[in-house]
């Protein structure tokens, strides 16, 4: 029982990442009609914003300490981060410690710019082209972005620790009245789940309760009519693209402590997120979120040893299996609307 509970938690947290990426994908697809295969790369760039923030805060000046020796027996070069010399050692260390959450402030402008440049510079030229062309060009773009990151940051994963306050785990079992020490879950993963719920909530409220959001929703269902009303829908869609990039980027920033970022991390999520979008229903935002959490939990439950003993390898294929079943029984996905991608 506690094993199931633990795996469900685990799935929710994995599902958070799927849901956030799928949400961005659906936003772009719903507004611009573009299948964006570079979305995983945006997630990866977000994670590298966390890495960059960590590096920026750790920028140091070197003093030579004659009393200590380095590994070759030469006087030791001591590196002191600028932050520590500006704010004092304690405050400086605290700032460095919180580099991942602080990276959010770096990621938002970076992702807005990346999203804007991507849309204006490349993707807008592909609106009228077939989906196959869009997939090829965005996939190519993803590879270019990956290689750029690899050239600058190397190919190995870069550890990006969470703040010390979140580095341990929480005994959820004890808090909920189970036996202590049975259901333990990492604090940062819990934080990630809460964070993703906040972001998802923010995106939905933005679309639901602002005039801008209303126009975008109107544009999503009937682009031509909105255009005829004298509204420049294209500019709003460009902004939506940038917002979708920010959502993916923030998902990446906060994911960095869970899994040390490497240049390839986006690709691992991309394919799964597309499955999530298809299962949720192309163009349906609630569908993307629902399917993200659902598939995350299912994947997690399928990787329990008890399940794997009966069906070996099921954890590797469960998501695709579910996708096949959903598509056979509900070809438009769980919450898909009629007419999307069917013309």
């Amino acid at each position: 029982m506690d094993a199931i509970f633990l795996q469900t938690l685990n799935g929710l947290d994995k599902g958070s990442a799927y849901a956030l990426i799928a949400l961005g994908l659906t936003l772009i697809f719903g507004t611009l009609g573009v299948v964006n295969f570079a979305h995983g790369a945006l997630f990866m760039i977000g994670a590298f914003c966390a890495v960059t923030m960590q590096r920026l805060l750790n920028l140091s000046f070197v003093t030579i300490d004659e009393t200590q020796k380095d590994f070759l027996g030469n006087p030791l070069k001591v590196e002191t981060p600028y932050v520590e010399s500006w704010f004092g050692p304690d405050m400086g260390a605290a700032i460095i410690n919180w580099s991942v959450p602080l990276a959010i402030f770096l990621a938002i402008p970076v992702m807005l710019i990346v999203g804007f440049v991507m849309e204006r510079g490349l993707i807008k030229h592909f609106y009228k082209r077939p989906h196959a062309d869009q997939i090829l060009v965005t996939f190519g773009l993803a590879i270019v972005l990956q290689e750029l990151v690899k050239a600058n940051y190397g190919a190995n994963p870069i550890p990006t620790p969470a703040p010390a306050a979140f580095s341990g785990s929480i005994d959820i079992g004890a808090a909920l009245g189970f036996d202590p020490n049975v259901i333990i879950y990492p604090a940062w993963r819990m934080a990630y789940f809460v964070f993703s719920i906040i972001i998802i909530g923010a995106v939905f409220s933005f679309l639901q309760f602002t005039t801008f959001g209303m126009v975008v929703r109107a544009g999503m269902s009937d682009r031509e009519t909105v255009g005829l009303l004298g509204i420049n829908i294209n500019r709003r869609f460009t902004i939506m693209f940038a917002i979708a990039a920010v959502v993916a980027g923030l998902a990446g920033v906060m994911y960095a402590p869970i899994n040390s970022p490497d240049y390839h991390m986006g690709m691992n999520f991309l394919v799964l997120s597309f499955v999530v979008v298809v299962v949720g229903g192309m163009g349906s935002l609630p569908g993307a979120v629902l399917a993200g959490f659902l598939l995350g939990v299912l994947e997690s439950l399928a990787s329990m040893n008890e399940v794997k003993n009966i069906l070996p390898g099921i954890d590797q294929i469960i998501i695709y299996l579910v996708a096949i079943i959903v598509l056979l029984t509900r070809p438009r996905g769980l919450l898909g609307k009629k007419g999307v991608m069917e013309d």
Partner: protein
Amino acid sequence: MTKSSFTRRGLLKTGAIAGAGLALPTIFTSRANAYMNEPKGGTVTLGFNVPQTGPYADEGADELKAFQLAVKHLNGEGDGGMLNTFSSKALTGNGVLGKKVAYVTGDTQTKSDAARASAKSMIEKDGAVMISGGSSSGVAVAVQGLCQEAGVIFMAGLTHSNDTTGKDKKANGFRHFFDAYMSAAALAPVLSNQYGKDRKFYMLTADYTWGWTQAASMKEFMEGEGWNMVADVKTPLASTDFSSYLTPVLNSGADVLILNHYGGNMVNSLTQAVQFGMRDKQVNGKQFEVVVPLISELMAKGAGKNIEGILGSSNWNWKLQDEGTKAFVKSYGTEYGVPPSQAAQTCYVQTLLYADACERAGSFDPCAVVPALEGYEFDGLGNGKTLYRADDHQCFKDVLVVQGNDKAQNEYDLLNVFETTPVEKVMYEPDNPFFAGGDLGQCNSGA
């Protein structure tokens, strides 16, 4: 009934043509050369095949630096490094057999097919007379097979699977690095000493040749110490989130987790195990422990603080105090500003050992080099007295049990040598069941 299109005449004809075709290249080469890629001018070319892209690229970059340093020293540039401490004095810094050493590099991408293609190109286009490199056992086994067929020597770099000098061993292939069996043999007594006899362990294992042999070796030796295995779960090599593999560990009743993971895989699985509170946990009234059988400095760097206190094994460590190590660390550190990793050391040593064998044999002919290395005993290369055993072309030397350092003096001070296990304790017979099934075969000079 279908009519067969085979006829006796047709078959003979095709056979003859195919036979002639196969024989033709060897007829030409054997006329020109006594053996594959016999060096003609004033230089001899070596091929260094390392992962320059892909997840092990940083490891590969370190190997490549070591190769370049070795070539420098062979050609008499720099301070000579381990040439000064090597027990054999055949090398004088005048190249090899009077020829200046040149090298070409290839990119394995940590994929067997890419590694074979780049090795093939270095042999056929660049005329490499020896191939070295590695950093994945899958790659090493594939390239070793290719070198055997092509008739050049393969000096394996970092490869830790038992199979490299076990069931996949080849006459033209030699491994200086230690193997999974030796790791387990060295670790088992230390682990049962430190953590007690009555332990239940759970293993997560990378699902390919190295992981399998590592897991099998650990199981054999830990059960020999009285430990009980709860489960051995295979994880895909590409897996980056191990949380769903780690959560079952928590409720399995196990009190030790053994991570048979390497490189980026290990960095992720260890970090996540720590996030799940596994190092602060009490199970069965004992402190829960995590063990990583193969630790490298680069992995320790990736894992950061999480490696502190963790036990594992290494082929070599730059903090050793023998003369060979000191000379190598000094010359590598001066050249590159960082201490060398164990991958760098094995690649450097392999290059020197090959050059020395050619010098002693008086030829680059693989069939002269092989006997020069077989049964060869040497010292002064950082691992103490070492034997290249003739039966399987595996080096036998002391094994280091290392522990993540919790009192690091500087950013390179990541691992402490916990214990040096003498070679007798990790030695095995060539027909040991973990290594059985292979055959060295005959040396191939490609002629």
